[in-house]
């Protein structure tokens, strides 16, 4: 057990990050029980990791087992890291303070490509060999899951196992296997783990390359290792294990409220969106279930805000009914209900007014593109009319602060398309002024935010080149000049981080050495502007003789073997190709709730019915 002295805690920022002992944290008697020890690591600082719902769900799932003890671990801030290294304190689980190298499993959730160096740093701080190929019998098994695991290849020699898909059942299968097979050697255990559906063991596959550096072949080394790894999904989503309490953070975290996961999957088919593709099919929880969960969580936490979480929340088949019941049940207790950013075409003022009965929050819309042509290319589908109606309704009901999110650098985009963002924002401002003074709230504030598009694997745009930095710079500049009104505030992201994101999102095994080299030369907290060092990364690329442009800026051909092709997400490659071709022709694909678009999910996942649990009126 690590002892962190008071003197160290006095010296660091936000010492409550490192002490554990929060309300609802799980305490198990380790001295009298032989638990499977699982360290669930979020590769960022406490305030970010404690906001992550997936970690909370899996913490609950693992701790519900009587034979397993799951603890939380977060990346120490550099000031604490220095104290730890100076004082020989290894990275520890918050609950027991035991060092990570004493655990059986060390798991990382891959939420963001720029968190990879933190993963390496956390392994190093635990004195666990960073490379999977160098770990011995006594080292923990390192397992990684989460959205970025859908292209695991850049971390192929970091993780021993990748868990693809939804973890609730998969991890239980792995723990069951471990309990039975504790006597096996590390290699033998990993070989057995590869037979669990959804588990990918990179050391059991070999990749060869062509002269032009594209992939020549990707083959399993043995017959009992699956050629394709199929993602895991939870078919009975309504009854799947969900926490009845959340660990209450000591300090303020990014998202400090109860989160209710209402459904998984999405039917809109936006072509840039990986989540919309990989979380299919749509599965809903019933309103009764959600109400039951909300009551338990309010009682056990004392939070005053309930957030409904999902993709495209307004598509939940009984959204009005659900919101109405949650609000009326909780209005006396002053628990407010909030929704994440809303699709403009399903925005309903009635809905919004309902949730604002307790407390008014800001309004966010994501048109994503400035021109109708571009919105059709990316299949976002919302029209200017939709936006006009929505903002007018919002202004008439007393909102005066609106946030609008867009992306720059989308495939087939021109500078004119980007400049249209300014026109859209201008239209929103004009709608405000049309509303009579007595009805509207004073002080119009429109914030326009643009992010640089990063093509993601398992999407119709996975073959697209990222827009280069000069082109992006000139588009941002044109947009800035086009925005006239003082009520409109423009926030843009211009950093080279997007370039690196594009590389790692669609990278292959050769990037692993680059990540290790960058970490060895000091890279950490790359998602934080105060620590991100682009030059260090460029040096790492040249040291390893790897060209980043190859991954970010190259337009790939449909015939190319992509590093993530071996993963079956249920949506077929043919569908992705057809969607990309439709994008080029500016043809929209409709919402598949209305008409099946044949993405392939119900063929490959026969046990998962589309819209399981949903009730249509």
């Amino acid at each position, binding site marked *: 057990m690590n002892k962190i002295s*008071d003197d160290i805690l*006095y010296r660091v920022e936000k010492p*409550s990050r490192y002490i554990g002992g929060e*309300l609802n944290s799980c305490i198990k008697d380790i001295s009298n029980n032989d638990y499977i020890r699982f360290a669930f690591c979020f590769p960022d600082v406490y305030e970010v990791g404690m906001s992550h719902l997936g970690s909370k769900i899996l913490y609950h799932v693992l701790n519900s087992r009587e034979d397993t003890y799951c603890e939380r671990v977060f990346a120490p801030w550099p000031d604490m890291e220095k104290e730890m290294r100076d004082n020989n304190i290894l990275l520890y689980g918050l609950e027991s303070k035991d060092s990570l190298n004493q655990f059986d499993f060390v798991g990382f959730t891959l939420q963001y490509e720029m968190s990879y160096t933190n993963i390496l740093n956390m392994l190093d701080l635990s004195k666990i060999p960073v490379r999977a190929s160098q770990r011995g019998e006594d080292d923990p098994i390192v397992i990684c899951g989460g959205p970025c695991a859908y292209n695991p290849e850049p971390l192929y020699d970091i993780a021993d196992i990748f868990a693809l898909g939804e973890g609730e059942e998969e991890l239980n299968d792995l723990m069951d296997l471990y309990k039975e097979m504790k006597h096996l050697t590390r290699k033998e255990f990993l070989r057995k783990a590869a037979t669990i559906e959804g588990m990918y063991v990179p050391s059991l596959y070999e990749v060869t390359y062509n002269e032009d550096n594209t992939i020549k072949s990707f083959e399993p080394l043995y017959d009992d290792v699956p050629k394709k790894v199929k993602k895991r999904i939870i078919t009975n989503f309504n009854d799947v294990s969900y926490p009845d309490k959340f660990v209450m953070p*000591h300090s303020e975290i990014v998202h400090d409220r109860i989160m209710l996961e209402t459904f998984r999957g999405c039917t809109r088919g936006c072509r840039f969106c990986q989540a919309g593709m990989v979380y299919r099919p749509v599965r809903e929880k019933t309103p009764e279930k959600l109400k039951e969960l909300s009551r338990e969580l309010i009682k056990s936490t*004392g939070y*005053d805000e309930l957030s409904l979480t999902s993709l495209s929340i307004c598509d939940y088949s009984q959204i009005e009914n659900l919101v109405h019941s949650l609000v009326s049940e909780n209005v006396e207790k002053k628990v407010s209900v909030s929704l994440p950013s809303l699709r403009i075409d399903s925005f309903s003022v009635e809905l919004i007014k309902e949730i604002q009965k307790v*407390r008014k929050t800001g309004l966010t819309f994501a048109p994503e593109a400035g021109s109708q042509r571009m919105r059709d290319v990316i299949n976002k589908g919302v029209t200017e009319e939709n936006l006009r109606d929505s903002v007018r309704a919002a202004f008439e009901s007393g909102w005066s602060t609106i946030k609008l999110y867009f992306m720059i650098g989308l495939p087939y985009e021109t500078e004119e398309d980007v400049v249209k963002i300014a026109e859209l924002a201008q239209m929103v401002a004009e709608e405000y002024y049309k509303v009579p003074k007595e009805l509207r709230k004073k002080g119009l504030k429109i914030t326009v935010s643009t992010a640089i598009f990063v093509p993601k694997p398992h999407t119709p745009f996975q073959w697209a080149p990222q827009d280069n930095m000069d082109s992006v710079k000139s588009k941002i500049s044109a947009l800035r000049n086009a925005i006239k009104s003082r009520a409109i505030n423009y926030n843009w992201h211009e950093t080279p981080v997007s370039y690196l994101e594009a590389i790692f999102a669609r990278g292959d095994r050769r990037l692993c050495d680059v990540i290790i080299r960058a970490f060895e030369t000091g890279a950490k907290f790359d998602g934080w502007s105060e620590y991100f060092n682009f030059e260090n990364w460029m040096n790492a690329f040249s040291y390893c003789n790897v060209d980043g442009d190859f991954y970010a800026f190259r337009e790939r051909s449909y015939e190319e073997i992509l590093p993530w092709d071996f993963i079956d997400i249920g949506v077929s490659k043919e569908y992705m190709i057809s969607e990309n071709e439709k994008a080029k022709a500016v043809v929209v694909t409709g919402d598949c709730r209305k008409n099946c678009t044949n993405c392939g999910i119900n063929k490959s996942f026969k046990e998962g019915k589309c819209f399981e649990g949903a009730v249509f009126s």
Partner: protein
Amino acid sequence: MKWISYLDLLRTIQRIVRRTDFDIKYSEGFNPHMSISIGQPLSVGVESTGDYMDVELKSEISENEFKSRFNENSQIGIKIVDVLKVKEVKDAKKKSSMAMLDGASYEVSMKISQNEKVIEEIEAMLLKEKWEALKKSKNGDKVVDIKPLVLDLKYEILEEELKLSLLLKAGSRSNLSCDLLTSFIKEQVPSLSADSFPRIKRTEMFLLKGEKLLPMIKAYN
């Protein structure tokens, strides 16, 4: 618990109160908040066994019930030790406990690096007529004589540590922060360890009743 900040403590207490389901009074307006206030903020790292909280309820509840329900729903490190029900007097303005605060007592431990001269240095400090310390504030730094704000100081050396029992002026009228005093002492007593941080614990808060300082729970009315 000493590692969480004052604002985080307030938030934690608000959540404890929500879990108790007390009939708490809320403020009016767009963003209603609970009518709970806790005393004078302590720096991160300072403990307390004698702090006060004012809570307004909409309906009656016995002192014992309040104490037990709160503690049942509380967490490690936060416990109610005593409750005083204050009757609402018609047309009189409610007095917050913090507005009436006059003094606070503390126990402090400071590590000693060299034993030989410690007592000599402390006695020399106690003999000084003025204790001039730099008080930092939003409007700039000021040199202040803090000796008159120290109402009582007792010390002893125990196992390489200097232990102090202090009674200091506290509150909106006249206030000496314990941090400022311990920084001053560290300066005046070089034998104290420079790298180590003083351990501070606030033990009680007081009101002036006539000439005497009495613990707030006894003196409040």
